[in-house]
C-alpha cells in the first residue's frame, strides 16, 4: 500500500519540479502533471479498493511525528478514499481535457492546477480545522488562478468576484475557528467533537460561523451571484472542475464539520439546502446561456446534496447510499455537461443544436441530462428513490414534496435545452471540432455513469430482481448503431422474439399480464417488422425503441414498486426519444417529457406513501394505503394518466403523435398508452371500492374518462391532419377505457380490458395504414389526399374494417365494447357519465367518416395518380391485426370468456352468462357469432341480387359526375374535405377552445415570470454580491438564534 501522504507530496513535488522545468519544457511538464495526477488517483483508488474489499481500518497520518493537538493529522478512511478518488479522477480527466489550455498558459498554470488538486485532497483528508482553512484558501487561490486562465473580461471579473466572495467567506471561517479554539482549546476536529462546543453559549456562534462559511463555499441561494458569474466566466474545463471536484470536496468538508455541530444544526442546513435547490432551479427556467444554466443546475444539485446532508437523521442507514449516488450523479453529469459545453462552444442553449452533427456528443448529453434527473439506469435513480422512500418512512412529506418540486423545475429547463439540442432548427451555427483529449473525459464519465448505475442497483434490495439482459441487448444495439437499419431491425426483431419466448411462460395463469404482454411485445414485433420500410441508418432508433419495449416488458414483470418505477422511467426515456424524432416535434416532445416527469414524481410520491403504509415494496402494498390514501391513490392515478393522456393531461399527445412517423406513431399510440392503462389497473385493483375515499376518486376518474372521450372525439372531428385526428381519437378511446375501469364492476372492467385489447388491434391498423400513407404522400393533411381507394385497395379494406370495428358497428367486434358499456352503465347507475361516453362514441363517426372519405374516397389528386400500394412490410402487420379482428369478431367469446373468468377473482358479481356463443347479462343479450353469420349471409344474398340487377354498369372516371351542368375543374377544388364538419363546428366548436392548453401555458408563464422577477437579484456587480453574502449571514444568524 502506498501511503496516503503521497497524495499530497507527489503533486507538491511535481508542481515544484514543473516550476523548475521552466517554460521551455511544456510538454514534459504536462506529462509530469498528468503522471502526478494519475499517481494520486492510483493511490486513492488503491485505498478505496482495499477499504471496499477487505477490512482495512482507517489510517491516521501525523505530520511532524506528533499526535494532535500538537500537529496536523490527516485521515484516510473509506470516505476520504472515496472523495479523494473522485476528486483525483476528475482532476486527472480535467487535466487531460484542459491539456492544451494549460500548455498554452505555461508551466505555472500546470503548477496551479496541481496545487488545486492537492488542496482539494487535503481538504478532504485533513482533521485539523485550521489546516482545513489554509487549504481552503489555497484551493480558492488556485481556483481563482484557474478562472482567469482564460483571458477575457468575463473571466477576469469572475475571478475577481470569486476572490471577493471567498475572501469574505474565509474571514468568517477564520473568525469561527478562532471562536472554536477559544472555547475548546483545540483545532483538531476530533477534539472539537469531543469538546462538544455546541452546548456552550458562544460555541454555537463558532459553529454557526464555521458552518455558514462552508455552506457559503457551497454557493447557497441567494448569496451565490458570484458563483454564477464564475461558472459563466470560467473556461468550461474549469467549470467542470469547480462543479465536480471542488464541490465534492466542500461537501465532504461540510459533512466532516457536521460532526462538530451536532444534531440541532441539521434542519438549518437542510432548509438552506432546499431553498437553494428550489430557487436556483426555478431561476434556471429563464436562463439561455448554457454555462450559466449549468451553474444554476450545479448550485441546485449541491443544494440538494446539502439538503440530504441536513436530512441525514431521517435517512437512517440509507443516508450514505443516497448521498453517494446523488453526489456521483451530479459529479459525472456536471463534468460531462461542462466538458461538452467546452467542445461545442455555444453560449446560447439554442445554438446547441449543432451538437446533432456528432451522435456521440448527443448520447453523452442525453446521458448527463437523464443522469441528473434521476432516470434509470443511472445511480441517481436509486438515490432519489431511496431518498423519497426514506423521507416518507420518517414522515417527512413536506421535504419530499419540496425535493420533487425542485427536481421538476430542473427537468423543465434541462429538457427544454435537450429538446433544442435534438430538434431546434437553427441555421447559423458555430463550427467546432472534437479533439480527442476533449472527448475522452466525458466519454469515460458517460460509460462510468452506466456502470455505476448497474452497480448502485445492486445495493438496493428491491432492485435485485431487475432484469438487465434486455438492457445489455440494447447496449449491444447501441454499439452497432453504424450498421444499416435493416440489419439492426432484424437483430432487434430476433431479440424481441427470443425475449417473448422467455418471458411469456412467466405470465402463465395471469391473464391480465398476458393480454398486456401480447399488446406490448406483439406490438413490438409488428412495429419492428413495419420498421423494415425505412432506408438508411435510422441512427439511434432501435436503441430507444428497444428501451421503450424493455420498459414495457419490465413493467409487466415487475414484482415491486421500484421495478414498476424503474420500468416506467425506462419506458418514458425510450418513448421520449421516439416521439421527439418527428419533424416538428420539439415542443411536443418537450411537453410530453414535462407531463411524464410530473407524472413520475406523482407516482413516486404515491409509491412512497404505499411503502410507508405497508412496510415493504411488494405490489400488495398498493392495496390498503393507510397514510393519506386519497392523496396517494390520486397521485398514482394522475401519474399513470399522464400516459393515457386523460383530460387535463392530454395536451402533449396530439402534437407528439401527430408528428411521429408511421411505426413510431403505432408504437406510441397503440402500445405506449396501454402502459398507463396497466398502471391504472394496478392502482384500482389495490384501491378497491370499499373505502370511503374510493367512491370520490372513482367518481372523478369516471368523469375524467368521460370528458376525455368527449373532448378527444370532438376534437378529432375538427382536425385537418390525419395523424392528429388519430391522436385525438386515441385520447377519446383511452377515455373510454379509463371510464370503464372507473366503473369498478365486472362489466366495466371487462369493457375496459376488452377495449384495451381491441383498441390495440384497430388503432394499430389505422396508425400503420394512415401513417404509411402520410409518409408515402409526404403530407398528413387529409385535404391533400383523396381517391386513394383505386391506388391502395388493400389499405382501404384494412381501414374500412378498422373503422367499422372502432365505431362499434355490428357484426365486427367493436360492438361488444359498446354493448358491454350499455350494460355496465345501466347496471352500475352511472348514467350521465355513461351518456357522455356513448355520445362521444357516436361522435366518433364524424372523424372516422372524415378519415376514410378524405383519404380514400373523393377525388384522386394529380400528383397521386402514380402512387402504389403500401409496402409489404407495412401490409403484413396490418393484415395480421385484421385477421385478429376478424377472428375475435366471429367468436368474441374467445376473448371475453377468459377475461370474465379472470375478473371473477376481483368482481365476483355481475359476470356475463354464457350460453354457447350467446352472452347475456341481467339486462340484455348478444350473440356475436350469430350476428356475424346472419349479416354475412344476408349481405352475400343481397350482393348477388345487386349483381344480377346491375351487371351492366358502365365504369366511368372521376370527373364523370353531375356538376350542375358544368364539369369539375380540378380534383383539388372538387374534393370536399377541408373544414368538413363546419356546421358541427358552429354548434359545438366551443368544446375546442384550447382551455387546457391555456391553463398549462398560464402555469408555465407564472413560473417563468416568477423566475425572471427574482433572478434580478443577480445584478452582476461584485459589491452587491459581497453584500448578499454578508446579508445572508446576518439573516441566517437572526433566524437561527
Amino acid at each position: 500500500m502506498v501511503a496516503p501522504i503521497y497524495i499530497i507530496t507527489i503533486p507538491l513535488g511535481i508542481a515544484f519540479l514543473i516550476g523548475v522545468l521552466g517554460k521551455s519544457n511544456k510538454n514534459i511538464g504536462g506529462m509530469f502533471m498528468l503522471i502526478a495526477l494519475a499517481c494520486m488517483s492510483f493511490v486513492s483508488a488503491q485505498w478505496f479498493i482495499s477499504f471496499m474489499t477487505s477490512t482495512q481500518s482507517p489510517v491516521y497520518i501525523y505530520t511532524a511525528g506528533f499526535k494532535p493537538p500538537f500537529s496536523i493529522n490527516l485521515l484516510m478512511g473509506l470516505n476520504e478514499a472515496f472523495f479523494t478518488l473522485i476528486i483525483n479522477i476528475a482532476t486527472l480527466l480535467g487535466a487531460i481535457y484542459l491539456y492544451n489550455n494549460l500548455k498554452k498558459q505555461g508551466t505555472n498554470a500546470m503548477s496551479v492546477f496541481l496545487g488545486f488538486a492537492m488542496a482539494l485532497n487535503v481538504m478532504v483528508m485533513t482533521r485539523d480545522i485550521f489546516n482545513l482553512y489554509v487549504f481552503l484558501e489555497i484551493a480558492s487561490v488556485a481556483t481563482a488562478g484557474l478562472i482567469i486562465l482564460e483571458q477575457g473580461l468575463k473571466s477576469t471579473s469572475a475571478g475577481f468576484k470569486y476572490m471577493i466572495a471567498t475572501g469574505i467567506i474565509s474571514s468568517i471561517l477564520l473568525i469561527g475557528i478562532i471562536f472554536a479554539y477559544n472555547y475548546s482549546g483545540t483545532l483538531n476536529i476530533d477534539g472539537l467533537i469531543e469538546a462538544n462546543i455546541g452546548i456552550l453559549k458562544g460555541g454555537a456562534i463558532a459553529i454557526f460561523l464555521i458552518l455558514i462559511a462552508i455552506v457559503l463555499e457551497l454557493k447557497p441561494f441567494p448569496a451565490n451571484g458570484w458563483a454564477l458569474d464564475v461558472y459563466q466566466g470560467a473556461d468550461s474545463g474549469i467549470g467542470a472542475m469547480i462543479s465536480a471536484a471542488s464541490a465534492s470536496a466542500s461537501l465532504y468538508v461540510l459533512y466532516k464539520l457536521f460532526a462538530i455541530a451536532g444534531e440541532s444544526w441539521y434542519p438549518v442546513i437542510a432548509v438552506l439546502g432546499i431553498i437553494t435547490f428550489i430557487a436556483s432551479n426555478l431561476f434556471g427556467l429563464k436562463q439561455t446561456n448554457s454555462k450559466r444554466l449549468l451553474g444554476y443546475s450545479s448550485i441546485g444539485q449541491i443544494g440538494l446534496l446539502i439538503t440530504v446532508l441536513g436530512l441525514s437523521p431521517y435517512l437512517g442507514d440509507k443516508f450514505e447510499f443516497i448521498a453517494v449516488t446523488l453526489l456521483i450523479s451530479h459529479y459525472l453529469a456536471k463534468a460531462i455537461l461542462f466538458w461538452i459545453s467546452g467542445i461545442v462552444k455555444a453560449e446560447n442553449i439554442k445554438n446547441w443544436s449543432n451538437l446533432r452533427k456528432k451522435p456521440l456528443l448527443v448520447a453523452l448529453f442525453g446521458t448527463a441530462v437523464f443522469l441528473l434527473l434521476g432516470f434509470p439506469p443511472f445511480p441517481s435513480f436509486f438515490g432519489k428513490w431511496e431518498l423519497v422512500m426514506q423521507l416518507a418512512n420518517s414522515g417527512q412529506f413536506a421535504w419530499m414534496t419540496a425535493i420533487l418540486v425542485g427536481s421538476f423545475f430542473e427537468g423543465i429547463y434541462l429538457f427544454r435545452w435537450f429538446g433544442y439540442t435534438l430538434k431546434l432548427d437553427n441555421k447559423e451555427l458555430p463550427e467546432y471540432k472534437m479533439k480527442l483529449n476533449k472527448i475522452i473525459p466525458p466519454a469515460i464519465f458517460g460509460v462510468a455513469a452506466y456502470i455505476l448505475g448497474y452497480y448502485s442497483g445492486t445495493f438496493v434490495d428491491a432492485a435485485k430482481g431487475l432484469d438487465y439482459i434486455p438492457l445489455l441487448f440494447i447496449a449491444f444495439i447501441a454499439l452497432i448503431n453504424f450498421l444499416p437499419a435493416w440489419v439492426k431491425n432484424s437483430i432487434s426483431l430476433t431479440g424481441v422474439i427470443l425475449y417473448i419466448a422467455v418471458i411469456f411462460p412467466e405470465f402463465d395463469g395471469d391473464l391480465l399480464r398476458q393480454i398486456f404482454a401480447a399488446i406490448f411485445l406483439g406490438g413490438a414485433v409488428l412495429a419492428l417488422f413495419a420498421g423494415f420500410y425505412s432506408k438508411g441508418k435510422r441512427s439511434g432508433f432501435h436503441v430507444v425503441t428497444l428501451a421503450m419495449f424493455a420498459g414495457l416488458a419490465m413493467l409487466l414483470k415487475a414484482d415491486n414498486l421500484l421495478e414498476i418505477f424503474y420500468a416506467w422511467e425506462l419506458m418514458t426515456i425510450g418513448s421520449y426519444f421516439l416521439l421527439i424524432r418527428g419533424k416538428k416535434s420539439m415542443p411536443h416532445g418537450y411537453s410530453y417529457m414535462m407531463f411524464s416527469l410530473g407524472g413520475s414524481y406523482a407516482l413516486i410520491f404515491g409509491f412512497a406513501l404505499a411503502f410507508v403504509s405497508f412496510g415493504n415494496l411488494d405490489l400488495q402494498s398498493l392495496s390498503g394505503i393507510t397514510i393519506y390514501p386519497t392523496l396517494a391513490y390520486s397521485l398514482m392515478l394522475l401519474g399513470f394518466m399522464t400516459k393515457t393522456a386523460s383530460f387535463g393531461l392530454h395536451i402533449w399527445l396530439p402534437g407528439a403523435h401527430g408528428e411521429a412517423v408511421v411505426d413510431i406513431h403505432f408504437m406510441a399510440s397503440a402500445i405506449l398508452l396501454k402502459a398507463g392503462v396497466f398502471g391504472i389497473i394496478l392502482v384500482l385493483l389495490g384501491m378497491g371500492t370499499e373505502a370511503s375515499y374510493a367512491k370520490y376518486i372513482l367518481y372523478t376518474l369516471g368523469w375524467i374518462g368521460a370528458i376525455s372521450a368527449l373532448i378527444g372525439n370532438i376534437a378529432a372531428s375538427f382536425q385537418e391532419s390525419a395523424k392528429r385526428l388519430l391522436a385525438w381519437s386515441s385520447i377519446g378511446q383511452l377515455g373510454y377505457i379509463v371510464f370503464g375501469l372507473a366503473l369498478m364492476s365486472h362489466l366495466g372492467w371487462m369493457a375496459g380490458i376488452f377495449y384495451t385489447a381491441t383498441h390495440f388491434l384497430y388503432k394499430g391498423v389505422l396508425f400503420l395504414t394512415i401513417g404509411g400513407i402520410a409518409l408515402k404522400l409526404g403530407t398528413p393533411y387529409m385535404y391533400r389526399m383523396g381517391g386513394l381507394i383505386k391506388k391502395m385497395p388493400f389499405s382501404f379494406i384494412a381501414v374500412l374494417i378498422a373503422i367499422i370495428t372502432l365505431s362499434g358497428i355490428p357484426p365486427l367486434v367493436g360492438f361488444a365494447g359498446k354493448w358491454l358499456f350499455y350494460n355496465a352503465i345501466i347496471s352500475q347507475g352511472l348514467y350521465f357519465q355513461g351518456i357522455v361516453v356513448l355520445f362521444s362514441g357516436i361522435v366518433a363517426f364524424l372523424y372516422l367518416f372524415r378519415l376514410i372519405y378524405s383519404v380514400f374516397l373523393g377525388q384522386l389528386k394529380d400528383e397521386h395518380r402514380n402512387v402504389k400500394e403500401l409496402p409489404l412490410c407495412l401490409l403484413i402487420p396490418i393484415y395480421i391485426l385484421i385477421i385478429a379482428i376478424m377472428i375475435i369478431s366471429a367468436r368474441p367469446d374467445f376473448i371475453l370468456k377468459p377475461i370474465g373468468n379472470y375478473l371473477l377473482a376481483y368482481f365476483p358479481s355481475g359476470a356475463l352468462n354464457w350460453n354457447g356463443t350467446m352472452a347475456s347479462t341481467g339486462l340484455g343479450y348478444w350473440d356475436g357469432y350469430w350476428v356475424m353469420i346472419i349479416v354475412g349471409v344476408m349481405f352475400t344474398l343481397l350482393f348477388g341480387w345487386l349483381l344480377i340487377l346491375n351487371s351492366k354498369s358502365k365504369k366511368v372516371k372521376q370527373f364523370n359526375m353531375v356538376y350542375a351542368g358544368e364539369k369539375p375543374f380540378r380534383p383539388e377544388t372538387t374534393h370536399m374535405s377541408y373544414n368538413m364538419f363546419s356546421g358541427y363546428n358552429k354548434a359545438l366548436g366551443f368544446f375546442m377552445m384550447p382551455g387546457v392548453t391555456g391553463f398549462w401555458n398560464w402555469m408555465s408563464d407564472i413560473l417563468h415570470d416568477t423566475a425572471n422577477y427574482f433572478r434580478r437579484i443577480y445584478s452582476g456587480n461584485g459589491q452587491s454580491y459581497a453584500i448578499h453574502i454578508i446579508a445572508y449571514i446576518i439573516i441566517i444568524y437572526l433566524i437561527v438564534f
Partner: protein
Amino acid sequence: MDNIAIKLLFTLLGLFIVLNWGLIQAGIMNKIVARVGKRIGMPVYQPYFNLIKLYSKRTSITHGVMFYLGPLFRLSGGVGMFLFMPLIFGSEYWSNFSFAGDVVLILYFQFFGMLGMALGAGEGGHPYSAIGVSRGLSQWTTIELPLTLAIISIAIQYHSLSFTDIVAAQQGGITHWTMWTNPLATAAGMLAFLGTMGHSPFDLVKAPNEIPIGPPTEYHSTFLGVLRTNAAILHVVESVLFMNLFFGGATSWFELILKTFLIYFWSVFVGVVFPRFRIEQSVSWFLKVPLILGILAIIFI
C-alpha cells in the same frame, strides 16, 4: 335446423309484407301531404311505379367498387335491422332473428347502412355527397343522444334491454305502455324519431334544392332502386323500433300496421308543419329540448 329453415321462410314473408307496407305507407303519406296542400297528389301505388322504373333503367354507371357496394350496405343495414327486430309480440316466428341481440344491437346496426352509404356516396366523388354526409353525421350524433337517454331510461324502468321483455312489460292496455308509464322518455324518443326519419325540419341532409338529394346525389337507376327499397323497409322497421319501445309493441299484423302508420305519421305531420333547420340549428336543438327531456327521463324514472 328445421326451426331455422321455417324461421327463414317466415322472415322472408315478413320482409315481403314489410316492404309492401312500407311502399304503400309512403304512398299514403304522399297523398296526405298532397291533401294538406289541397292537391290530389300522386296515386297511392306511385312508389311501385317508381321502384319498377328505377330497376328497369337500361343504363347505369359506377364510380368504383365502393360506389357499387354503397347501396348494398344501405340495404343490408335496413334488412339487418329488420332481421334483428321482433315484429309481433308472442310469436316465435315473427320475432325474426332477434335472439342474436337486443336493443343495443339494433341501435348500432343502424349505422351499418349509414356508413356504407356514406362511403359509397363518398366514392362518387361529388362534393355534395360529402357535404350531405357531413351534415347527416353531425345531425345523427345529436339525434342519438336523446334516443340513447330514452332507451337507458326504459332499460332502467324495465330492467332489461331485450325487446321481448320491454314489450312484455307493456302488455295489458294502454296504461301499461311506456308512453303512459314513462312519458318523458317517450317524448325524448319521439323527438329523436323526427330526426331519424329525416323529414322536415331535419331534412337538410337531403336538402333537395341546394345539395341535390345530399349523399345519394350520384345514385341512379338500380342503385337508387335499392336505396328506395331500403327506405321502404327502414321506415317501417324504425317505426317498429319505436313501437316496441314506447307503444306496447304489436300482437298482430293489424296492430303493427296501425301503430307504425301512426308513428310514421307523426314525423310526416311535423314535417308538413315546420320549415327546415340549418345544420347547426338542428344540432343545437337536439342538444336542448330533447336532451333535457332525456335527462329528466332518467332522473325521474
